[in-house]
């Protein structure tokens, strides 16, 4: 793939995430749906860049704030929106919601609502790839706050000891709920935590999709080559706070937010691509309108989809049979 195609692809993914998020937020703000929603606004560049270095056979795990990771990995947009609005046609038949989006057909294997909860599982996916000599790589996405929980520590240690083909991507958006990162840890760079495991650690500007791509591609290559895991800290910012519409965001300094919005990765990357001569404004615009239609279709599909049958509550507990 040419670098141009790749970069346009990254932008398209970013825009898909962006447009879906805008649509979701307007569904909520307008009162059309009432759901808990964790906006990825501001973090689009990270999974878009990482996914550009992945194949459909690779795997990811992510968190409640993982709609961007899930879309970037190629999950069906219709199903994603339908799941969040609680429909039978969603990725999880309406049983999971945004905290548990999963689409194993494209490698979205587990989304956890427990901070750090999916990190140990990422190791297991990578272990299976290692044991079956597949060259699939697993990406484990999580937040800065998650690096303070026990499961993070145990998992990075085990991945290093077993040289698992897994890349840990910490999306450092500077906050865990309402807690500024530096109130909860004493290290400037989360990537430095890799040293505890004898694993490489890299900090990259997560709002720079090109830089993020380079770092991710190198780590993924390393993992694929059997050289073991890497911890990537991709710095970014969370424009919409923790839970969209609920979080008052008073704890986020106004100047900090203003600076972050000024560095908004979506328009910034758009301008850069145009500036670099990768595409003309109208070419970008036509990608965007294609995506806008896709998103509009997804929303329409979701809202037109049936709600689940109440009896579905009793299936999928075990492999076979229903329980009462």
């Amino acid at each position, binding site marked *: 793939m040419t670098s141009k195609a790749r970069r346009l692809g990254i932008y398209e993914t970013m825009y898909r995430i962006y447009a879906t998020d805008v649509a979701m937020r307007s569904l909520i703000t307008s009162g059309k749906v009432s*759901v*808990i929603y964790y906006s990825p606004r501001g973090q689009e560049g990270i999974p878009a860049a990482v996914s550009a270095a992945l194949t459909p056979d690779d795997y990811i795990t992510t968190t409640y704030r993982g709609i961007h990771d899930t879309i970037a990995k190629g999950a069906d947009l219709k199903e994603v929106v339908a799941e969040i609005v*609680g*429909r039978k046609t969603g990725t*999880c038949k*309406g*049983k*999971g*919601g945004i*905290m*548990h989006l999963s689409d194993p057909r494209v490698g979205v294997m587990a989304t*956890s*609502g*427990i*901070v*750090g*909860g999916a990190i140990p599982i990422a190791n297991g996916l990578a272990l299976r790839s290692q044991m079956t000599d597949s060259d699939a790589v697993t990406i484990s996405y999580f937040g800065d*706050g*998650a690096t*303070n*929980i*026990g*499961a993070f520590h145990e998992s990075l240690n085990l991945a290093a000891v077993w040289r698992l083909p897994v890349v840990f991507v910490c999306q450092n958006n500077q906050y*865990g*709920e*309402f*807690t500024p990162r530096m*109130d*909860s*840890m004493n290290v400037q760079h989360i990537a430095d935590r890799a040293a505890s495991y004898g694993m490489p650690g890299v900090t990259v500007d997560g709002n720079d999709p090109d830089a993020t791509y380079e770092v991710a591609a190198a780590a993924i290559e390393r993992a694929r080559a059997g050289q073991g895991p890497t911890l990537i800290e991709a710095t970014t910012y969370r424009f919409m706070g923790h839970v969209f519409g609920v*979080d*008052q965001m*008073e*704890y986020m300094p106004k100047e900090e937010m203003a600076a972050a919005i000024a560095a908004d990765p979506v328009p910034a990357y758009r301008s850069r691509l145009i500036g670099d001569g990768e595409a003309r404004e109208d070419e970008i615009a036509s990608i965007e309108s294609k995506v806008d239609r896709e998103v509009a279709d997804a929303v329409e599909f979701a809202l037109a989809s049936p*709600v*689940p*049958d*109440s*009896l*579905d*509550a*009793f299936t999928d*507990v075990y492999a076979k049979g229903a*329980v*009462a």
Partner: protein
Amino acid sequence: MTIQAEETKTITLIEALGQALDDALSSDPDVFLLGEDIIDPAGGAFGLTRGLSTKYGRERVRETPISEQAIIGAGIGAAMLGAKPIAEIMIADFYAVCLDQVANHAAKLRYMSGGRTTVPLTIRGMLSGGLNFAAQHSQSVEAWLLHTPGLKVAMPSTPADAKGLLTTAIHDPDPVILLEPVALYTVTGPVPVGRHEVPVGQADVKRVGADVTVVTYGPCVPMALAAAEELAGEISVEVVDLRWLAPWDKETVLESVSKTGRAVVMHQAVECCGFGAEISSVISENLWSVLEGPVLRVAGANTPVPYATELEQAHMPGTNDLVKAIRSTGEWKSRG
């Protein structure tokens, strides 16, 4: 009812909890709070602790990293040296990430040390359910805790009880866990303005009745009262709100069932190995000869908690389920 004829003010359950914390912080220097996101300006995920860090300082209202094991451990250690820490576990499902500190340490240190050490720690936080928060943010985990000797466990259903239970918990010499039904956070009720306690192990008969006893607690109490109201005239329902789940008020429950001869237990937790089974067993063991029929259970279905409203409603026990269960006891023929 334990609310005395004293001055009360009508406030929400979440305000009552905040008030209990405020009172404890202001009256006892050994009290302090620790937990995720509890400081101002947000003051907790639902604003329960809002104002407290501003009033008492961040030394006594301590924001923590997302590290539940470290949170509980810090509470245990400080408590062993005479503090009265109040640790927040934001949502009850997260007991799963710190159960070792709770069940293997807080619960057992007194016993394992032959009584030489004590853990006057309070752990409190939301018990979710019914909010479309899905399988990992909606569980009622009280049975895990009740199967762990050494813990005291309470769950309020009214603002007054919330204040009273939390106040009692804070000053109790043992580890107490308060599970706060978030579904009831905005319920209002009269709350004593002064210090108010609910003595350990004391249930409250929230409605007096003659025909059937409903034993319940927490988020199901309003449903039980609604069911009782719906059946009024047809069946006279007594509603016992346990409030304390460990130790629980067997006396009050057995007295009530002795009178009615019929009992239905209701809780939001899934049925299998839920607290309802324990209550049912104890009633049967003690009141065999007076029971007109088996103790019935109305509880969450034995599935994880689903996300979409239609599914979650199907999973959760509701007023209708309870009404049906109560009615079914009426069909029993008296043995006598």
